């Protein structure tokens, strides 16, 4: 348990933070790296003086560290402003590949960020979004669930690796090879926002062509994210964010683009964000992702056992890092407010997963999610406070 690494708990020692799926808190090394970058870096790739060179080194060092984290290659790593930004950029970058009548598959598990960009793309290109219903027995989407929906018109398949409502992991590792064996080559996009801090993540082994996540879901700062893509997949994207930094030069005849991934990164990058991401990667590397996985899995298991709530969605055995629940006759917002007034932070609502909650006929749920600063004591405190909540509501 690493609570001492997080300065917030010095200021707020009684805080019980159970909303890491929304955003993680930041450890000291990340805060220090961000401050250092704000103090002493120039604009990367622009100047010949040390500050500018230092900025370039920082970016490429972060790219290499990200690649190691994903067991990938540096040239497969594109920096973005986060998961939503990455998915929107992908949708725009793939637009030229989408023809009228083409299909984009998503599941009904998806966060709005992995739904809306594809809906907009389909609308823009006169294509169709097709929804694969998740398997409610497992709370996930598997290769067998998806394959039945793939047609010759399917160009993109966009799915979440870990559900932000159920915490369940969808396994589509075999989907790409199965489709290729059938002569079909839709591009597979994985939203890894919830997966990135819950278990080791080896990009190619997921079976995806593209994978996106945010730094702030893995103890890094907001405003920074990663888009990983296989080299041949990145090559299919039109320039994601054309501008200074993405070209060698621009002639009268047109731009001479840089090689990937730099072709796909226009503008001055979020240097302090990347410094924070770099520090977060080093922090997690020190702990080891297997240890991180074990830590959150143990907390999920304990919470599932200890909390007397209504597991509206009972996937406790298969959850990576979070649990959703309701309490009879007490609205999720009332539960969350009661807990917030007592220094316990949870999330309540539909968690930006409207279609899923519509299918479940639930206006919302309460969600708890775990990070490196959580301990069994947090779960016991939550348990007791829920008992008090029930008593207070019964008393009125």
């Amino acid at each position, binding site marked *: 348990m690493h609570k001492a690494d997080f300065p917030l708990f010095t200021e707020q020692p009684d805080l019980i933070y159970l909303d890491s799926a929304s955003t993680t808190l930041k450890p000291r090394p990340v805060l220090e790296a961000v401050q250092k970058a704000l103090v002493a870096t120039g604009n990367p790739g622009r100047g010949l003086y040390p500050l500018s060179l230092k900025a370039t080194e920082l970016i490429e060092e972060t790219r290499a560290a990200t690649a190691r984290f994903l067991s990938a290659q540096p040239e497969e790593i594109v920096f973005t402003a986060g998961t939503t930004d990455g998915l929107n950029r992908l949708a725009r970058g793939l637009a030229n590949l989408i023809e009228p009548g083409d299909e984009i598959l998503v599941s009904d598990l998806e966060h709005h960020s992995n739904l809306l960009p594809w809906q907009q793309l389909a609308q823009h290109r006169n294509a169709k979004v097709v929804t694969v219903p998740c398997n409610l027995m497992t709370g996930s989407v598997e290769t067998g669930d998806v394959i039945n929906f793939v047609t010759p018109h399917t160009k993109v398949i966009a799915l979440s690796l870990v559900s932000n409502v159920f915490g369940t992991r969808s396994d589509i590792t075999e989907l790409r090879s199965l489709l290729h064996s059938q002569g079909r080559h839709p591009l597979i996009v994985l939203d890894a926002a919830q997966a990135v801090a819950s278990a080791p993540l080896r990009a190619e082994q997921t079976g995806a062509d593209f994978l996106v996540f945010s730094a702030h879901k893995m103890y890094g700062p907001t405003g920074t994210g990663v888009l990983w893509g296989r080299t041949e997949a990145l090559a299919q994207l039109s320039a994601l964010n054309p501008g200074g930094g993405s070209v060698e030069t621009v002639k009268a005849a047109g731009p001479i683009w840089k090689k990937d991934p730099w072709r796909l990164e226009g503008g001055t990058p979020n240097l302090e964000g990347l410094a924070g991401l770099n520090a977060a990667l080093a922090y997690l590397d020190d702990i080891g992702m297997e240890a991180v996985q074990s830590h959150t899995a143990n907390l999920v298991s304990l919470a599932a056992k200890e909390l007397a709530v209504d597991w509206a969605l009972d996937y406790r055995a298969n959850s990576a890092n979070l649990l959703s629940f309701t309490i009879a006759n007490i*609205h999720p*917002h009332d539960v969350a407010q009661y807990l917030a007034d007592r220094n316990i932070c949870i999330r309540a*609502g*539909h968690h930006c997963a409207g279609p899923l*909650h519509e299918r479940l006929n639930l*206006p919302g749920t309460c969600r708890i999610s775990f990070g490196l600063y959580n301990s069994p004591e947090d779960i016991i405190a939550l348990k007791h406070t829920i008992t*008090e909540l029930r008593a207070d509501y019964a008393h*009125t």
Partner: protein
Amino acid sequence: MLTPEQELIIDRAQHPQFAGELPEATHVAEGANLSCGDEIRYELRLDETGAIQEIRHQARACSICLANADLLAEYAASHTLEEIKTWNPSNEIARLNVPLSPIRQKCATLPLETLKLAIKKGTVSRTG
């Protein structure tokens, strides 16, 4: 433990005095806060003078919205439609006498928005 104000809100939410359906309603509207799932329906029946004869609500919502839906119904029953049209959402928040974040302020103001829509339209309408 809850504060007395919080207890009042929960009690009113759990024991509403104006919940139910209204036969021969003359003014009906539905409202929702789509981001949190609160849903409310107001039904009014006016008498021949245009005064509110009866008012009822049905809601699936958090305690803030439920309590205020009922408190608002009680308060509105003794006022004219023209008066209700001028009511300010900030008064809805103040009535509850508990601190409310911007997100929960929307829960408090949804009943008034819906009631005003019912008055404006006079038939089944929807906000949110």
